[in-house]
């Protein structure tokens, strides 16, 4: 039993070490490019403005301000983003450098009204 326990402990330690290595392996190489901040807000479950622009090949920080009292979920299939924005709150979404093009996004909780496009040039 005690050898089993020891083996379990070693197994646990190895798992934790692997997890830590995976977490921090990427830390030193922080992005050198300048991040562009883009703002957008939501009111009555509609994006304002519904079309936003950003430069290509630069990291983007999208600040989403929710002016409605209830939560929304900012989601985009092409941007690979899914994030809840609390009611009367805001959230920042990091987007990796993009190729020029149009990237659609929507409010997952109100897909009938909450639609917008990010145009990257």
């Amino acid at each position, binding site marked *: 039993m005690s050898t*089993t326990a020891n*083996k*379990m402990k070693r*197994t*646990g330690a*190895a*798992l*934790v070490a*692997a*997890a830590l290595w*995976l*977490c921090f*392996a*990427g*830390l030193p*190489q*922080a*992005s050198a490019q300048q991040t562009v901040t883009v703002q957008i807000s939501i009111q009555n479950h509609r994006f304002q403005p519904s079309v936003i622009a950003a430069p290509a090949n630069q*990291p983007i920080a999208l600040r989403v301000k929710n002016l409605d*009292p*209830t*939560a*929304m*979920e900012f989601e985009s*299939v*092409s941007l*690979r*983003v899914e*994030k*809840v*924005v*609390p*009611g009367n*709150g805001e*959230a*920042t*979404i*990091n987007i*990796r450098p993009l190729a020029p093009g149009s990237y659609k996004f929507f409010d*997952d*909780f109100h*897909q*009938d009204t909450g639609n917008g496009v990010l145009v990257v040039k």
Partner: protein
Amino acid sequence: MLAALVIVFREVIEAGLIVGIVMAATKAVTHRGQWITGGIIAGFIGACLVALFVGAITAAFAGMGQELFNATVLGIAVVMLTWHNVWMARHGREIATEMLTLGKAVVAGSRTLLALAVVVGIAILREGSEVVLFLYGIMTSEGGWSLSILLGGLLGLALGALVSVLTYLGLLRIPGRYLFAVTSLMIALLAAGMAAQAVGFLEQANMVTALGTVLWNSSGILSDSSLLGKVLRTLIGYNDQPTGMEAAVYLATLAVTYILMKIAAPVPIPAHLRR
């Protein structure tokens, strides 16, 4: 009603699959029903708490609280799933062949059941909190529960439960001697997919940037936000635009699980010592 049904079903399908696999993987372990039910209830309570504190979670860690929260709970689930596989590699046969006395088997089984109950709880907590926020939002904007929303939500939930039952019954059709191997593989793939997803959240929080190049884009063939794509995403970790790091972590998790299971497997008893 349909909107509520679709959203609720889409959120619970992942948890539904996981519950089905976990039930099949623990078929030979006693008292599993209680543990899994406990995990479901704890996950539901957790989902309500997460929904309640979503503002505080979002604002934490310089606005990256949601990403870190998701990465952490996924990381815990990965450790629990891997631990279960390693544990079953060691004791699975003993339990299946009732080599342990009943009391010992119950104590031993409860450890791995706790690990899997945590996994079930986490799956429900993650997806459930979005369901709670969505339904709460509708409730407040429409000034109370409408019967059709309630019905849609319940139907979506029922469909999710049906996914569990079908997954479970489907897995039980596998002959007993292969069941352990199949569920071990499924749990390893589940863990690898979750580990890659956890890293995806760390990438979204800009905490992991190495190997950040997208390896391929198969969203034109099968989008991972489609129903089939989502099922495959849960089952085997399908990702239509994986980064190098996500792929590396996926493969590393599978490799680590394989090695640990090999180390843990009991040494076969030599023929001349067998009864």
